[in-house]
């Protein structure tokens, strides 16, 4: 295309051409209709792809539950390898779910765990650690008092302390 290589065109369209190439190409575009039309088509194509990519990223973002389930599955696949990371926290969360589910249902139990984590320094179940476990449990006990009653909340608290 009129003495410009595909590499030069590609870099210009992507905005990464060096100054010399940019100046040469822009000077040429002022006077060459066919090259201008080519640039116009390529630039609009690039923009349409960029916009479509934005939409796909927005639509196909994984929610909290998908992330939580995915992380659990990864630790299951790692088995013993991931034990030093996953064992205690995942086991604790599983045990707490086991305690709460019969009292308030598994969906409510999961929501309670998530809410307790979001209101704590951990901010999410995925970021629970030994260090931020205590504030999470305090929140969970408060929530459990509402959804499971005082006795249920006591059970949840005792189970959370067991590890």
């Amino acid at each position, binding site marked *: 295309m009129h003495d410009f290589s595909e590499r030069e065109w590609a870099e210009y369209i992507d905005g990464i051409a060096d100054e010399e190439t940019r100046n040469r190409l822009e000077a040429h575009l002022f006077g060459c209709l066919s090259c201008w039309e080519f640039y116009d088509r390529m630039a609009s*194509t*690039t*923009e349409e792809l960029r916009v*479509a990519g934005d939409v796909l990223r927005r*639509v*196909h973002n*994984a929610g909290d539950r998908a992330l939580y389930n*995915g992380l659990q*599955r990864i630790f299951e696949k790692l088995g013993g390898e991931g034990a030093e990371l996953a064992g205690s926290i995942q086991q604790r969360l599983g045990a707490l779910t086991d305690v709460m589910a019969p009292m308030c249902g598994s969906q409510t139990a999961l929501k309670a765990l998530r809410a307790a984590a979001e209101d704590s320094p951990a901010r999410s179940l995925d970021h629970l650690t030994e260090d931020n476990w205590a504030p999470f449990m305090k929140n969970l006990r408060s929530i459990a008092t509402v959804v499971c009653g005082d006795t249920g909340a006591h059970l949840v608290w005792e189970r959370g302390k067991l590890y």
Partner: protein
Amino acid sequence: MDVRQALEQFQVGRSEEAFCALFEYVYPRLRRYFMIRGMELLEAEDLAQNVMVLVYRHAGEVRDRELFLGWVFKAAKNELARYWRQRRTRDRIARMEPLSDELARTLVDESTSGRQADFMEWMSHLEASEREILILRYVEELSYEDLSLALGIPLGTVKWRLFNARKKLAPIINRTTPGAKRRIH
């Protein structure tokens, strides 16, 4: 914590917090990548989890943290190839994978469904290698350097392949989206 910091922390200390930060950044991208490549949701999640297992085991081998995403998507591409080999559908790699049911079910919001459907229709006009590079560039926003690592091709070839894929799509896109906005550098 950004992904490079998380990777560094995980490489050094293998802490739970660092792995979770890596997971949060990488896993949704992998999941989306496999879904766009034609997997159903459960298959996509399974493959994404397999790649995260590789991240856990081999993160120490990543020398250049700037190219971590390229390393991840190289692993993803290998995982996808292994999956298709196991499914004995090697010829599907040469054709456009059909829109997965899960992806099709998400085409309900009129404000976004047009764009998604357009994108999948555009991809159907391309060879597998062209689709791969455009998906990684425009959906996963990989840099040229990451693309070079992920696809195992030189940087010049990355630019050439992107340029030619767009040239191929230009008459199709400009026919289906008249009056499209564009940015001028």
